[in-house]
């Protein structure tokens, strides 16, 4: 038999290479010593979702800057970020490595809905915090069943509900056309839209999907226009969103246009799509946009900009991921700080669930972080804004959704 003994040897010796796993200190839990806190993270540094890699890099840099300033209560953060390529099975593998071999204290900002889905059960069985996950799915705030998992950003579902309500209140005789990415994220938006429309769900005259690999969404936009829709719900990532905006203009289709928040970047979407084509588009926001001139004199924006110049020279400041990651890193640092000397996982979750009107930089004015033992949705407020000229124009009140 030719079967490989060599491989078996290799397999066995792979086992034999010992990790120098730190023996847990008695006063803390895994991943914490007098001088160090180990925080894990997964991010798609390769593959189709690699645009999000900027988040991982910014968090890494943020903790470096925290460490240089003396760390958190005297402890340095060691940030271990691993590539899962947005593949759930890979996420399981690297997360197990971080939890069991690298002995991380907590997993922070693992990115992607399917990736978080794959590890949620494991993290909760192991009782390791899966904190401030980087996905807008609405399922992350379920402390009764998953007390070790907590979300961060306003969820897609609620955002879509807000669009639906705004549309019903403001568009006469609305006929809605929906463009959504054919995955969990697109599905969340469509679900929210339907819920928000309620009995008016029949107003959706056409709902089309696209694949992340589709080179263009032209064909889909033609179908939407042809359906006679006068409202365009655009639930797509930056590239498809920009293509959709431009194509709609090319076809001379001028619906009331709602654009999902993740594609609201001026530099990455509105400018490539053409300012002329983007006028009047409505979106819900919770973060400031660095490419939006109205924040040029904002103190938090200036501080962020200076931080970027110092720590990430050469990085593209127009990339909204830097703003997002900066804010969430700030919150994580604060959470760890509040743990004080009691660096246990239970205490970390307790502190994370104890924020009252806490201001995270670069959130829109009036939006704060609020959590409680039954509310695991840190940011739940958004404000609508309309594109005008070359910037977003905030209008209406800050809206607080109750989705928990």
């Amino acid at each position: 038999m030719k079967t490989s003994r060599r491989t078996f040897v290799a397999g066995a010796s792979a086992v034999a290479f010992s990790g120098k796993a730190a023996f847990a200190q008695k006063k803390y839990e895994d991943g914490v010593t007098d001088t160090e806190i180990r925080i894990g993270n997964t991010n798609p540094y390769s593959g189709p979702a690699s645009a999000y890699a900027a988040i991982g890099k910014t968090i890494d840099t943020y903790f470096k800057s925290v460490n240089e300033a003396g760390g958190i209560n005297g402890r340095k953060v060691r940030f271990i970020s691993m590539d899962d390529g947005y593949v759930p099975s890979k996420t399981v593998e690297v997360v197990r490595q971080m939890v069991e071999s690298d002995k991380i204290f907590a997993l922070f900002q693992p990115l992607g809905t399917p990736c978080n889905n794959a590890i949620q059960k494991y993290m909760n069985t192991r009782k390791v915090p899966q904190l401030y996950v980087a996905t807008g799915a609405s399922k992350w705030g379920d402390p009764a069943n998953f007390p070790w998992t907590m979300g961060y950003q306003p969820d897609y579902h609620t955002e879509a509900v807000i669009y639906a309500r705004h549309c019903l209140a403001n568009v006469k005789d609305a006929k809605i056309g929906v463009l959504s990415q054919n995955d969990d994220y697109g599905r969340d938006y469509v679900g929210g839209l339907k819920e928000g429309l309620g009995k008016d769900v029949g107003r959706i005259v056409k709902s089309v999907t696209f694949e992340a690999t589709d080179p263009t969404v032209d064909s889909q936009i033609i179908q939407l226009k042809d359906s006679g829709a006068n409202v365009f719900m655009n639930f797509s990532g930056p590239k498809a969103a920009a293509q959709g905006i431009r194509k709609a203009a090319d076809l001379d289709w001028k619906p009331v246009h709602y654009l999902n928040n993740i594609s609201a970047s001026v530099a990455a979407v509105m400018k490539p799509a053409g300012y002329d084509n983007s006028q009047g588009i409505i979106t819900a926001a919770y973060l400031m946009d660095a490419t939006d001139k109205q924040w040029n004199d904002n103190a938090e924006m200036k501080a962020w900009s200076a931080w970027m110049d110092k720590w990430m020279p050469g990085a593209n400041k127009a990339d909204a991921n830097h703003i997002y990651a900066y804010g969430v890193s700030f919150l994580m640092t604060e959470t760890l700080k509040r743990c004080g000397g009691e660096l246990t996982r239970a205490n970390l979750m307790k502190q994370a669930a104890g924020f009252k009107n806490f201001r995270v930089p670069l959130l829109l004015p009036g939006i704060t972080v609020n959590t409680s033992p039954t509310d695991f949705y840190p940011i739940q407020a958004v404000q609508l804004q309309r594109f005008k000229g070359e910037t977003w124009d905030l209008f209406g009140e800050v809206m607080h959704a109750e989705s928990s």
Partner: protein
Amino acid sequence: MPSFPKKWLWVVLALAFAVPLLQPILPEIVSNYRLFLVSTMIIAAIAVLGLNLLTGFNGQISLGHGAFYAVGAYTAAVLMDKLNVPYYATLPIAAVVCFVVGFLFGQPALKLEGHYLALATFALALAVPQILKYKWLEDLTGGVQGIVLSKPEVPFDIPLNEDQWLYYYCLITMVVLFWAANNMLNSRSGRAIMAIRDHYMAADTMGINTARYKTVTFGISAAYTGIAGALSASAIAFVAPDSFNIFLSIKFLIGLVVGGVGSLTGSVVGGIFYVLVDNSAQAISTFIKNDLGLQFDLSAYTIFGLLLIILMYLMPQGIVGGVYILVRRFRRG
């Protein structure tokens, strides 16, 4: 291709079976995570073996074996999730389902050669995640959300933990499958399969029913990879369309070529490489960034690409072939 004395095989097997028992003595070295990692290597080795049967031994190229892996994984997941079938019973069912799918796909594949077959299989790999999301299958497959499963339970109160049991489960499956493949390849049918690869015309004129052999090989190959998929569903305890993107198929191909085309040993090496290359690329990338302090961001993906090119440069015949050549040179020298 290299072959070792049979007694060595038994030694290695005995070692492989003994490793988890060392856990109480060496808890840090034989950790649960490492056992899990080796289990994923074993699963990859089975999948690569499936591809090897088709591409290495029968000469039909496939860029789409991820599709059969996905079908196997989803068959197992749906059976466990909807019908409460015990996890061990999913393996034969997944094998049968994948055999049928592979056999059927083998029919049009008969007409296609080389690049055309590559495209057809590539399309298959691309189509399967789409089909999993298909509206009418959503209730079954969980659509874009996927299905969350439980880890295999340890039977008969055997005093093993989940990861140890998973390791044995995978190891035993692999031993059985490799034994079967070896027997098949050394039989009359096996020689026919390889004859088709080496000299299609001659095989055809000698009266070998080439069409049937090719389609059945396609089916068997798919069944092997499907079993690996079913094992992975148990090991990862989660299936979702995103786990089966086109890069999965490409990685099987990389495992095949790097291990050794047309070699059973090569499949195992390929399976190990498949898992290790990712991890080592990450480790090297972090090392360069943190310890060498290189300003330019050399990502794990870049390192992965470089590793592939360097490996092919050093051992164009794959690791098993390369090592064989080295050993021969050494003995002569």
